[in-house]
């Protein structure tokens, strides 16, 4: 492909002047890098809303009885917190931000395969977010169903089930478009000489993720049709009052929502697989094993949804089948951890901010994953199901796994994305405070669950008090760390010192282009020779 003479390569994508100006130059841009940042800013905004709701919940739980709000408000707060965090942050997650920004550059392409479709997927995302938020806020009753919208409770409270599921479907559609786009991009647009076995691991993780997005999201569509049949035509599908089966709803919900969790953790693992070799200055340990484990997680992860339902009254056969599949999906995750740590062995480790985040990712991910084994076994699951333990496990994986990886990734790629460096002292202070707060916030939940405290509890007995105080204090410390990290990044994006093209001596292709990259990334499409590869350190 010839470089178009109209596109200047010495002007970065941030400064490039197209036919639109101002805000329009962003919201109508088909440049994958600008779209990545659009996702970053929209998700950051929603994330902060979710954080404030989370803080309000933790503050309410600092003492038994009423602290700052009524039960009705508490139930609404945890519902909206969950809906925003899962459907608007977790599901688009790393693919939408770093996938969009980095994938084409990492495989040596000028953009994704369908740039306009890519822009459309952001707009669809915004539309879906708008739909879900309005449906949650403007129902007949307060939105108090939890993010799982379990039948038949959700049908009884006057919550806007139909629009909420429609919104989830629209958001899911945005994932489908992104997933499709990524799959085609990786199949068709890899640089010459970049065979599948030379593709970096972050793109590989996006590849596994994209297939999940493509295959799991239609289930939301099916659920939507069934809810519509029931709500509009009174056909009993889920509501026992009409002769329906509420357990069917749980199956359909988790067939989508469980793989959705892998949509987020796989790219998080992918980013870690890039960062550890770079800062160890060493070839990734077991490249092919990491690729296979990514695909294995994506595949097996599709068949474990039933482990959310061990006390719902499924047949015994279904229960132990889902339990054993859940244990099987743990194996490739464990293999990844072994390979990451082995990559550090005999490396030359440059301990920088992204590495701090990546190493602490491994620690919190281990806790999240190992606590998953505790809830994966049947006898222990029956005891812990729907207790605070599950909330702890879930946040260690979803917020620990994805959050730490997200911050590792943004500190890693920040100089590339914005062309400037951040203040590393403040970045490290922010990391330390965040990590301490995170552990104090979520670890007590394991203890509370072991003691038998149910989740989604507005009020609790005195015996659960002490651990709840620690958890609330943790939420304040963690938020302080978060504020430091975010302010540091915002200030540095504007005023930080100019960054080099390759500040970490990385070997993947994004480090061969200027920081920030020009509009079409490459002057000339790079080519992999026989001995080239993404992790060929000397």
């Amino acid at each position, binding site marked *: 492909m010839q470089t178009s003479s109209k596109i200047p390569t010495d002007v970065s994508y941030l400064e490039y002047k197209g036919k639109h100006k101002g805000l329009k130059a962003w919201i109508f841009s088909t440049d994958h890098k600008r779209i990545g940042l659009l996702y970053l800013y929209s998700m950051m905004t929603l994330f902060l809303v979710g954080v404030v709701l989370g803080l309000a919940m933790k503050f309410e739980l600092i003492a038994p009885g009423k602290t700052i709000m009524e039960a009705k408000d508490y139930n609404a707060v945890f519902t909206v917190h969950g809906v925003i965090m899962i459907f608007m942050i977790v599901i688009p997650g790393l693919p939408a931000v770093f996938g969009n920004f980095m994938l084409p550059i990492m495989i040596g392409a000028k953009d994704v395969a369908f740039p306009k479709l890519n822009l459309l997927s952001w707009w669809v995302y915004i539309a879906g977010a708008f739909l879900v938020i309005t449906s949650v806020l403007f129902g007949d009753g307060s939105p108090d169903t939890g993010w799982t919208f379990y039948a038949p409770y959700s049908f009884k409270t006057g919550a806007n089930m139909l629009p909420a599921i429609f919104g989830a479907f629209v958001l899911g559609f945005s994932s489908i478009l992104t997933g499709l786009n990524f799959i085609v991009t990786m199949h068709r647009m890899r640089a010459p000489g970049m065979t599948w076995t030379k593709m970096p691991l972050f793109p590989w993780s996006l590849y596994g993720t994209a297939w999940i997005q493509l295959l799991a999201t239609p289930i939301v569509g099916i659920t939507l049709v069934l809810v519509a049949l029931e709500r509009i035509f009174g056909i009993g599908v889920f509501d026992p009052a009409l002769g329906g089966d509420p357990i069917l709803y749980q199956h359909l919900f988790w067939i989508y929502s469980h793989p959705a969790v892998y949509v987020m953790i796989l790219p998080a693992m992918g980013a870690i697989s890039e960062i550890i070799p770079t800062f160890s200055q060493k070839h990734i340990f077991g490249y092919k094993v990491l690729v296979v484990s990514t695909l294995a997680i994506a595949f097996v992860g599709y068949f474990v949804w039933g482990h959310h339902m061990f006390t719902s009254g499924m047949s015994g056969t279904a229960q132990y089948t889902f339990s054993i599949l859940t244990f099987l999906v743990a194996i490739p995750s464990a293999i990844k951890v072994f390979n990451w740590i082995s990559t550090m062995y005999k490396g030359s480790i440059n301990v920088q901010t992204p590495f701090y985040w990546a190493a602490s990712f491994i620690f919190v991910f281990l806790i999240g994953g190992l*606590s998953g084994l505790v809830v994966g076994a049947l006898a*222990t699951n029956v005891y812990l199901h729907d207790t605070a333990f599950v909330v702890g496990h879930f946040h260690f994986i979803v917020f620990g796994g994805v959050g730490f990886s997200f911050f590792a990734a943004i500190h890693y790629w920040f100089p590339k994305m914005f062309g400037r460096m951040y203040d590393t002292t403040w970045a490290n202070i922010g990391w330390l405070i965040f990590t301490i707060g995170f552990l104090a916030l979520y670890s007590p939940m394991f203890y509370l669950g072991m003691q038998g405290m149910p989740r989604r509890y507005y009020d609790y007995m005195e015996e659960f008090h002490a651990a709840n105080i620690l958890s609330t204090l943790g939420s304040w410390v963690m938020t302080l760390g978060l504020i430091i990290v975010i302010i540091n990044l915002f200030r540095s994006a504007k005023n930080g010192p100019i960054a080099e093209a390759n500040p970490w001596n990385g070997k993947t292709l994004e480090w061969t282009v200027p920081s920030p990259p020009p509009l079409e990334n490459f002057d000339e499409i790079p080519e992999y020779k026989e001995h080239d590869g993404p992790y060929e350190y000397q």
Partner: protein
Amino acid sequence: MYILASPQASNFVADVDRAFIFILAVSFFFLIGLTAVMIYFIFKYNRKRHPKAVQIKGSNWLEFTWTIIPTILVLIMFYYGWAGWKPMKTAPDDSFEITVVGRMWNFTFEYDNGRRTDTLFVPKDQPVKLNLRSMDVIHSVYIPAFRVKEDVVPGSEKFMWFTPTNEGIYELFCTEYCGLQHSYMYNWVKVMPQEDFNKWYTDTTQQVASAEVTSPAAAGKRIMTNIGCFACHSIDGSKIIGPSFKGIYGHEVTVKTDGSERTVTVDDEYIKRSIYEPGADVVDGFNQGLMQSYRGQLSDDDIAKITEYLKTLQ
């Protein structure tokens, strides 16, 4: 220190806790071991001490080892989990059966001889089978000291069973989120020696004694407390989920009947209809469908007593 809920009071405890101990021991071993190795590598191979990395691309032997060992470990975990859970699925034939009725937001326990309680009384060392029924939405019966939990799903007949092994009073929580007062939906389990239980169960004098009421109105209040009316209806005029009972008897209310508004006077007839067919006349400003019919749960006689009690709330 024992990290699970400290009471250990049923036949399932030993096997469930064995699964816990095995999984937790393996988990802590790997968490501490891997973290220690990682920190050691970060110090030892810091670029100040180790300026030149040694390129190692992988090792089939290691990959094989660390695939096989976790596989064996998780299969053992699965086995212990399965072994602790399997007996929960089959109740012995000689189980003492009690029906648990869940509704927003309390549980009541119904015995074959007609006793209905808000505390679950069970005999020690006797298998007890709970038949789980829900009047409205999904609830879940969770007794941490017994290590058991099962969802109570409307429209289906599920059960759970256990043999209490220690006397005492234990917590019973609802663990499936079920709305406004979910966190107040808890009851107590009282385990008694078989002899005391039999005495309690068959002692009609005690039944009379426990129903020590001086008037039909007081009896009405007890019925309403037991069946959980006050979770949604206040007696002080405040609005919860349904209309307050304060001053309701004999007064006019605006209701929606089949979509059209009309005014009715709250009398005996209206109260009975509201209990048996709660969706028929819905008071203006409240949602239809939240309350279930209590037909079969409350007799005409019960409703007469309830009506007497409502008359006193002026």
